[in-house]
């Protein structure tokens, strides 16, 4: 295995980590409108992700930074080509981070409800757009011989990628509902479980549809395996949720996300961004990558840092392992 193949796998892994982790905190953000009945309940939801959402978001920063370093051409084509959707995601992530940190810092009703609207929309929109972006990346877009994206915004909004967007949105929201059921006590936990069923069924239909479409277009044997794992895990998550096995359900919804993202990367390889104009113009792990020297240094860095990151982030989840409910919320804010 060449180092650029290793880095393709590592970048896939970073995206898996990002969607697994931020997937549930996006989902919880969306549930602040779907599930919570009043401000105290919204605060319970926000507090379930409070200690971890910032660390989750860094997976995105790292995925982007690693792509820049390991595959500069991929980074350049992807970020300049998907300019407007990424702009919207950025604006959302700005608003979202500030909303979490500022919402509770003033007691006025209007201040808090404004930030709560921000949290809902800035969780929903990126959940949708990441699917659209990944859908397009896998399907192939108009890339010319200079590796430049020459399509328009309209080209990005096609049925396949829009289905991808709905698939990620519902999958993340389901993942968030399962996480809520796992992390809360009392009435919210019961309702989260109920909503998880509905969300899970909708997600199962959309995700299966999107993955089968992907398989039909670009799939092979290994991607089929990933597809089956994703669908089976999603089904298992719904069943475990119905049985009240919340830990299992959350683990399985995470596996479903991981397998679905892995499937997309499997159908891509050895391309990183196929061109819909001419196969000769595909960006591949070979022509888009950095030099072996850079990749070697990065491999050392990732080899040492990544296990440590997982260790201390894992510890965070253990420190905050207790469930919370409305009775844990002080009146002060």
């Amino acid at each position: 295995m060449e180092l650029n193949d290793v880095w393709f796998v590592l970048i896939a892994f970073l995206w898996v980590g990002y969607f697994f982790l931020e997937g549930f905190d996006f989902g919880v953000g969306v549930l602040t409108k779907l599930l919570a009945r009043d401000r105290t309940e919204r605060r319970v939801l926000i507090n379930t992700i409070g200690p971890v959402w910032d660390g989750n978001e860094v997976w995105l920063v790292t995925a982007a930074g690693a792509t820049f370093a390991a595959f500069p051409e991929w980074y350049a084509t992807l970020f300049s080509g998907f300019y407007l959707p990424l702009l919207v995601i950025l604006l959302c992530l700005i608003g979202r981070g500030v909303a979490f940190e500022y919402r509770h810092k003033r007691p006025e009703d209007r201040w808090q409800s404004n930030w709560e609207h921000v949290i809902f929309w800035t969780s929903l929109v990126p959940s949708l757009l990441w699917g659209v972006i990944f859908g397009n990346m896998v399907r192939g877009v108009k890339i010319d011989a200079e590796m430049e994206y020459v399509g328009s915004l309209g080209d990005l909004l096609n049925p396949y990628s829009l289905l991808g967007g709905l698939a990620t949105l519902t999958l993340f929201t389901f993942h968030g509902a399962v996480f809520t059921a796992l992390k809360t006590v009392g009435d919210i936990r019961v309702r989260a479980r109920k909503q998880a069923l509905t969300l899970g069924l909708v997600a199962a239909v959309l995700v299966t549809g999107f993955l089968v479409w992907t398989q039909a277009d670009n799939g092979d044997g290994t991607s089929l395996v990933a597809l089956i794992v994703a669908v089976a895990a999603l089904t298992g998550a719904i069943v475990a949720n119905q049985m009240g096995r919340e830990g299992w359900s959350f683990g399985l919804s995470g596996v479903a996300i991981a397998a679905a993202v892995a499937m997309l990367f499997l159908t891509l390889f050895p391309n990183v961004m196929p061109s819909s104009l001419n196969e000769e113009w595909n960006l591949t792990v070979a022509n888009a990558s950095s030099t072996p020297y850079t990749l070697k240094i990065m491999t050392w860095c990732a080899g040492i840092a990544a296990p440590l990151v997982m260790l201390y982030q894992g510890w965070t989840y253990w420190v905050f392992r207790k469930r919370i409910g409305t009775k844990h919320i002080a009146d002060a804010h």
Partner: protein
Amino acid sequence: MELALAPETLARWQFGITTVYHFLFVPLTISLAALTAGLQTAWVRTEKQKYLRATKFWGKLFLINIAMGVVTGLVQEFQFGMNWSDYSRFVGDVFGAPLAFEALIAFFFESTFIGLWIFGWDKLPKKIHLACIWMVSIGTILSAYFILAANSWMQHPVGYEIDKATGRAELTDFWAVITQNTTLVQVFHTLSAAFLTGGAFMIGIAAFHLARKKHIPVMKTSLRLGLVTVVIAGLLTAISGDRLGKVMFDQQPMKMAAAEALWDGEAPAPFSLFAYGDVEKGHNTVALEIPGLLSFLAEDDFTSYVPGINDTNKAEQQKYGPGDYRPNIPVTYWSFRWMIGFGMASFAIGLAGLWLTRKKFMLPEHLRVGEDELPQLVPFRKALRPRFIRWYWLIATLTLAFPLIANSWGWLFTEMGRQPWAVYGVLRTSDAVSPGVSQGEVITSMILFTALYAVLAWVEVRLLVKTVKAGPPELTDADLNPPTKIGGGRDADQPMAFSY
């Protein structure tokens, strides 16, 4: 009009706006993390309540700033690919590595431990909780280091070669990139300036409360901490600034000639205090100068030769082909002066403040005051009326803005002074922009970012003012009885000591 809206111009404006905005929060974040950690250490060691109240107060202001710093930093990272894709293609092999290192080593660290610190008050024993804020502080400093290594490479590219076949810059020596003198001196200078910023921020806010005779024990401690920080950081900023100047004279002669509006090389060269000139004709019409000082700044020698703008431009034309290699001279000249001026002003105020509030043992017995009383501001005490004391507090309050202004001008200087190069001597800024991104897209993003930044600035300032006015919080039983085991040993049905 067409030229004014060229994608390059727009992309540069957007980068400038984002960078300057981002850098209002970064230095405060770096310094307040460390200062808060210092205060919390004092609490853990002495158990004096004023330290815990100070920790909570400055910690809250730190969190307000880091939230903005993080989200605007994300824009910086995406922007290279979005607006400067040809830059990214050309230098990704070299420039991407420190960026990826920053994310893997520093940013994960900082973001994970900040969550633990915010929510860990009633979940972690106090020494582990203290360790978390130190981890955050180390994370912010490492983060600055890697980002400045990347920026320094743009100022002075080393450890790379241009590949003949692909035309790209390719990394040959990563160690050189992260340890070259440009990087080390830049890190030293930027971190010192960050502490100058945080110290002045503390002075300003503490003075605001002390002038109103409120929260005296906490604010007196904070004032002294701020003053000491400003004086030490101010000295280090000046020393590192001098070193950085010498590195620049060596590596970017055009930038320093422009910073001095020195049109023609001279030996000895004077330091310009005020100049007004004609850029087209290449000379100054008015100039107020200190003889020989520039030679000293450049070479540690009052008589050495310093090349001017006109000679350097000719030399660069011979080296890189025809073209104009001069940056915007008035901007470079004045940003350099504003940076130094505002930085030195905060240092001077810090020094004066340290003298005026000096410790008991330096004062005669009858002038000493206790913990709960205002500092005496000695020289003003009998000789002058109380209104002069109010003036002192007012000036001290305003100090909080000075280093922020100095930082912004400093970045404008260092980035504008490098033009027309994105990577000095290697890649022109005009060759760095995204060719596929339309004018409309850049305009849209610039308007949206700027509008969002404006709204957030308004929100942030109001929140800061409100938080500052509220003062340090009263302590609760939970604050004074931290858990003794990880995960929180207290009754699980208690409300959380901290929640969003």
